[in-house]
């Protein structure tokens, strides 16, 4: 199933590669990845796969795999040889009898200690990666890689495994495999030596009673005995104290016991642990996910998985939008001038104080103040009253902090039809912080048919016009 862990390895390698070399040209790869139906991670992998088909770095991933196996092979061979050699060294040339205690200790001692350390590490620091052999392999494999892409492939492998805490199984498995080679080498060495040389077996002591060795040999031999490996009986063990027996049967029993112990306590546990580690590694690799929080991926996500796509316009804009126009009775109107506010009821806290000084205003006696209009009912009643009164001048006060809309403008147009002349006063315009909206009011009113001169932005001017007193005269009075 795509993406498998190899695909992720490729992607991770590319990420490290790009972190070093800069973003590669990926226009085509991104285009392909975006058509992939999967999630972000799958698309990252597709992008890497597509780019691998053109870039040279991709072969590094395969090369790294090959080299890893090669390094492993080298170490396995070295292990076999070393194991063989250690068996030879432990047994000697046959000139002297073999001390079984020292021989077993020499063959299994270090192995047992390292196994105990590994096991303890597993319990104490479950996430740390231990194992000297595993690290030796990594070191070797990395040194064998060419600089650049192959190192990236290595580091990629590393960071992927670290993310799932798989490094320990990985390195552990390698370590167990190497120990296995070493111990197999030892077994081969033992077999060869036992086949071609004659050895006598002894145990030695200064203070311990013979019974200790008898029990010890019996206990260690119990496990190999389960599969029929002969063990030296009590008689033979007792007789082997200090002087080697010449009896061929006894020698065969001792050599079988030695071999059986190395296999049962060396080869077998290492083989089982290696299988266990590699099984866990294999199943763990299925859980490997790319860390999308890495900067290299996070900056890709926008392009690979866009949050949205445009549908386009589904209902086109009308060519023209009906706008209202001012009308008027001109000279026919004779009623008293009227001041009315539009949508000035709702009190916005913003700039409220400044506005409160201007609205509601104190109007001259001759002016009729109609309050402010908000609801439909108010509008309807006022329009009816207006059509009866027919004022000479109508001043409509608006709140310039609101957005001018068609509804308000057409109301002004409706009102203007019942008056001799209609002008608009933008209340507290001077204190409005949103000068843009003020501009939109001016524009809207101009479209309505109100020239700039007919739009007041200060209270005195507006009220003077409404009262009909010439500005000069009022000022002197």
């Amino acid at each position, binding site marked *: 199933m795509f993406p498998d862990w190899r695909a992720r390895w490729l992607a991770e390698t590319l990420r490290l590669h790009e972190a070093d070399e800069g973003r590669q040209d990926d226009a085509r790869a991104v285009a392909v990845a975006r058509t992939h139906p999967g999630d972000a991670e799958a698309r990252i992998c597709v992008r890497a796969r597509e780019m691998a088909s053109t870039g040279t770095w991709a072969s590094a991933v395969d090369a790294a795999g090959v080299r890893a196996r090669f390094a492993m092979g080298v170490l396995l061979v070295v292990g076999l040889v070393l194991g063989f050699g250690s068996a030879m060294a432990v047994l000697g040339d046959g000139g002297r009898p073999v001390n079984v205690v020292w021989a077993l200790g020499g063959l299994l001692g270090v192995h047992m200690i390292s196994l105990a350390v590994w096991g303890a590490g597993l319990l104490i620091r479950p996430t740390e990666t231990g194992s000297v052999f595993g690290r030796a392999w990594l070191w070797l494999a990395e040194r064998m890689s060419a600089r650049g892409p192959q190192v990236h492939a290595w580091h990629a492998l590393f960071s992927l495994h670290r993310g799932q805490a798989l490094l320990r199984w990985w390195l552990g498995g390698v370590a167990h495999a190497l120990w296995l080679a070493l111990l197999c080498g030892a077994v081969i060495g033992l077999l060869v030596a036992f086949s071609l040389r004659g050895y006598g077996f002894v145990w030695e002591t200064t203070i311990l009673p013979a019974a200790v060795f008898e029990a010890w040999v019996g206990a260690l031999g119990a496990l190999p005995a389960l599969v029929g490996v002969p063990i030296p009986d009590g008689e033979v063990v007792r007789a082997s104290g200090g002087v080697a027996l010449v009896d061929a049967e006894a020698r065969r029993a001792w050599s079988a016991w030695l071999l059986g112990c190395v296999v049962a306590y060396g080869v077998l546990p290492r083989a089982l642990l290696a299988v266990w580690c590699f099984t866990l590694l294999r199943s763990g690799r299925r859980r490997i996910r790319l860390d999308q929080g890495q*900067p290299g991926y996070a900056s890709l996500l926008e392009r690979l998985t866009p*949050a949205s796509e*445009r549908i386009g316009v589904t*209902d*086109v804009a009308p060519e023209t*939008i009906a706008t209202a126009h001012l009308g008027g009775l001109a000279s026919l109107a004779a009623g008293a001038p009227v001041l009315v506010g539009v949508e000035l009821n709702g*009190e916005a*806290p913003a700039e409220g104080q400044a506005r409160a000084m201007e609205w509601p205003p104190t109007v001259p006696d001759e002016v009729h103040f109609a309050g402010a209009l908000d609801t*439909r009912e108010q509008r309807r009643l006022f329009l009816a009253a207006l059509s009866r009164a027919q004022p000479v001048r109508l001043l409509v006060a608006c709140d310039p902090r609101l957005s001018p809309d068609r509804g308000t403008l057409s109301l002004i147009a409706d009102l203007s039809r019942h008056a001799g002349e209609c002008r608009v006063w933008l209340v507290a315009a001077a204190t409005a912080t949103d000068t843009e909206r003020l501009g939109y009011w001016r524009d809207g009113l101009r479209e309505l048919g109100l020239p700039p001169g007919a739009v007041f932005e200060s209270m005195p001017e507006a009220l003077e016009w409404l009262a009909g007193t010439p500005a000069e005269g009022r000022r002197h009075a």
Partner: protein
Amino acid sequence: MPEKTVVRPVRIAVVGHTNTGKTSLMRTLTRDTGFGEVSSRPSTTRHVEGARLIADGEVLVELFDTPGMEDPMALLEELESIRPEGVDRLDGPARVERFLNAPAARARFEQEAKVLRQLRASDAGLYVIDVRDPVLAKHRDELEVLGDCAVPLLPVLNFVRAPQTNESRWREALSRLGLHAIVRFDTVAPERDGERWLYEKLATLLDAWRPSLEKLLACRAREADARHRAAVLLVAELLIDVAAYRVRVMATGAGAVEAKVIELNTRVREREQHCVDALLELYRFRSTDVDADQLPLANGEWQEDLFNPESLRQLGIRFGTGAAAGAAAGAGVDLMVGGLTFGTATAIGALAGGGWQAVRQFGDRVLGSVTGQRQLAVDDGILRFLAVRQLHLLCALETRGHGAISPIHGLVDQVRQWREGALPAPLRKARAHREWSGVDGKAADGLERNRALEQLAELLATDAEAIRRAETR
């Protein structure tokens, strides 16, 4: 057998009075800064335009931007005047259908008809409100008209971050109209969890699409987390790089040392700029973005200040060696006034004065005395300053640079650990690993460096969280 889950994407219309920020909301939800046309001019959008929201390659939501309602009073009157003969009473949707088929829907009310048609075809509507506006009769009429479409409406309170709003009045008015699920969502500078609240509220109105909306939410949350982690990692890498950076210099001749100091300063500045660029790319900030100037980096002066003692003094950071007081005399630097600009004053003698103190003699004195070589490294104080500055930038970026982030001095309490005491352990470790530094080209990428990076990133994430909590309080 459980009901089969809905596979079609949920259709949502964005409606509202003219000039309340419908297209801005579209842009924020689609992450598409080029969607439609946005201006403060009323009735900018006159058509219906859609966008699909995608999560993990799956289309989950279809959003439609509609023109603003402009004449709701007359429209309601028009609707109420529809009284066909022989029918006792029309319900809302029937009334709307009749209206949409009438000639008025193609003439005076063409814009409003588009809105109603789209809303009728949608599963829900987001009713965008500019809470700076007072609640007027026309708004109530508008909601009545929209309510006739018999589609769940979720009021979205926009511009809630404005200094003075009518939010409580709007809430009261909306609840009187039976709209109790309301969401605050500043379309230009949404709160961190704003989008989550919006979709969650929407899910309460649209139970059938809850799985879709939850999937979308989960995906967006995952993306945000990834981005945040990436940002923190970028900053951590910068700090590791700079902490590990060392330059060898022959101790003979002051001129040579001075030249090295200048070189080191330049390199560190370049490295920081690299980090800033990466952060900007990560958060998709382009210099052309309207809100780019809201960030705490105005221009080159951001760089100049790094080695300026005054910048550090203002944050209460002291140089590791030597007090900064002496050098600070000539450098009256106006650091990020109001969190917007950097240094209106020029950084006089930042290099000559601060630069000398900013780097200190480091490392192997014994070896140095033998070979005549010394090593220069970046001072602790500079590292601290870098950390605080980048954290500040990061928080500003996460809120798209808007409003709520206080100037860098305001961070003092949240970043105390960067001001006092020892440097964090990963940085101290980096000091001893010259090969970890990527300031001069490539860093040796290894297990240890990676671990230090992760640890430092975790630390920085905690700091960023603390800053954010303090900002939202």
